[in-house]
């Protein structure tokens, strides 16, 4: 039966994604200034899981790099990529538009304002957590502003939400620009470095900071996937089958924003993952969000970890930040999708 065939196909795709994810993680642990052979990576990981096993013979410097640099960095990449992937899929569903991404409701511009305030006040040099916490607050405030601007009579019309998101985004960019022009060069550089999202110098602290909100956001979004299938069909259709539309739209919007914001605050703005990954997965597993969300989760993590690893080895002696790599790989792919869609339309 066709339905079982579709189920089997989905299973195979998920298995492939899982294998790719493991490969990306291994590459990310191995590649970099200090090359660590796969055998050593495996041995060190085994040793970490079961310390009783005999000494695996991994040099101490390699083990240190692995545990204190590469692993936290890869973990941040996995979390952020997965979070951006699934949030992008949820937002594309809420807006019933394949071009929506987490930036559309002001998350990234809000985070930027938060970050620049933390830098301008000099708080970022006092504590490692100041900048992420400010970015998170900025992002959440921006989303709340967007939602409250578009709320009318207890309902949130999608088009108004979209326009409000654009307006809030523009306004906050202006705020950022105004603060930026008044800052000294050092602080300016610090901000610039933050805007181009990257995973370098990420520590276990960063993982611990974001894992709570991101884990919660992701888990609840997965749980609500079925409702997104109804929400996509529009207000009237959703109300006709008895869905409390505003409640679910608001809940999913806030979950996607929280997840994205928590990701942005530990990695900076990383584009294209939330846009390209869900789009690609929709072509592979179809539009049913019960499949699309888990697939986007895996693929997002895989994509970002791979981009980060590739950015470390693409030029020798110089690292290309993950936020730049995702755009380099994401843009051509997106253009290809766009052209393909145009061809389909003209047929």
């Amino acid at each position: 039966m066709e339905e079982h065939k579709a189920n089997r196909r989905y299973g195979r795709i998920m298995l492939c994604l899982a294998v790719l994810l493991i490969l990306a993680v291994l590459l990310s642990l191995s590649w970099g200034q200090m090359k660590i052979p796969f055998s050593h990576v495996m041995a060190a990981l085994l040793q970490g899981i079961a310390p009783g096993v005999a000494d695996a013979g991994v040099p101490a410097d390699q083990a240190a790099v692995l545990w204190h640099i590469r692993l936290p960095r890869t973990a941040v990449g996995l979390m952020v990529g997965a979070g951006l992937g699934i949030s992008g899929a949820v937002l594309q569903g809420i807006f019933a538009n394949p071009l929506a991404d987490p930036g559309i409701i002001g998350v990234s511009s809000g985070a930027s304002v938060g970050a620049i305030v933390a830098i301008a006040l000099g708080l970022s040099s006092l504590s490692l957590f100041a900048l992420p916490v400010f970015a998170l607050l900025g992002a959440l405030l921006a989303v709340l502003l967007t939602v409250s601007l578009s709320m009318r009579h207890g309902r949130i019309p999608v088009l108004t939400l979209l326009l409000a998101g654009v307006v809030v985004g523009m306004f906050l960019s202006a705020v950022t620009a105004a603060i930026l022009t008044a800052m000294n060069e050092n602080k300016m550089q610090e901000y610039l470095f933050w805007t181009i999202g990257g995973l370098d110098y990420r520590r276990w602290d960063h993982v611990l900071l974001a894992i709570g909100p991101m884990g919660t956001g992701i888990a609840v979004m997965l749980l609500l996937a079925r409702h997104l299938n109804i929400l996509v069909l529009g207000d009237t259709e959703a109300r006709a089958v008895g869905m409390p539309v505003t409640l679910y739209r608001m809940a999913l919007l806030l979950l996607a924003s929280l997840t994205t914001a928590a990701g942005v605050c530990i990695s900076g703005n990383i584009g294209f993952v939330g846009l390209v990954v869900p789009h690609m997965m929709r072509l592979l597993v179809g539009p049913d969000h019960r499949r699309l969300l888990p697939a986007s989760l895996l693929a997002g993590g895989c994509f970002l970890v791979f981009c980060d690893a590739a950015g470390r080895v693409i030029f020798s002696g110089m690292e290309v930040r993950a936020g730049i790599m995702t755009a380099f790989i994401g843009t051509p792919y997106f253009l290809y999708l766009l052209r393909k869609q145009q061809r389909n339309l003209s047929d």
Partner: protein
Amino acid sequence: MSEEFVFEAEHLTVGYPGRLVLHDLSFSVRPGELVGIIGANGAGKSTLMKTLRGMLAAQEGSVRLYGRKIRDIPGRELARLAGYLQQQTAVPFAYTVRDIVMTGRYPYLSWWQQAGERDRQLAEVCLAYVGMADQANRPLQELSGGQRQRVLLAKVLAQQTPVLLLDEPAAGLDLMYQEELFRFCRSLCAAGRTVMLIAHELSLADRFCSRLLLIGQGGLIADGTPREVMTEPLLSRAFSADIRVSVNPLTGHADIYTQPGQPAADREKLLRQITGREGSDGRA
């Protein structure tokens, strides 16, 4: 459901704040009736149906469903009582026909619950009923307008409601399926369901509906059996046109003809402007 009436509208005024469409309607609908709502374009048929379904708030008066005020019935319960087929549904992304029909099961599932085997079987049955079982795995976007309409009807059927409100269910259907649809509705009513539908094709409404509500001039012009409603003066009033009705003695059904609404000379003049042959006296 032992109540005497399915719907009761009392001094109902429908429309939007600042733009009232229909005033002071009072009527009631009994179980098993097939009620056709007819009237000219823009008369307010859809607005009335949305208000009956609780999608729009009544501007004045009230709507009762099985004796309860419609706005007091929670959304999920309402979705188990009255199905609603809207005039146009835009489906983004490549959802399959089966996916869409399965959404009709939504009001029966708790928020954490997934659809089960029984829901899936019911969806298949509904698809078979509208003759679309062989298309279950195709994306809805690929289907023609008429096929889509049938899938959406199957979705409403999967909701298993005692009441169905259908806004122009026959729009875009082939002649054969238009009649087929009215027959579907009649058999649903024979099985105890109550159907209200908006009909464009007056002769089909005349043949199949047990009762007609004629809407026009900002209110309810007539309410009764097709024989009582399908009369020249009433229809002419509702459609602001000169309408002739002749009852076919063989079938007992009405044939409806319209006379041109505008004077012929005026139309000639407008046509000359459109075709750009103003100076040539309409000949050329």
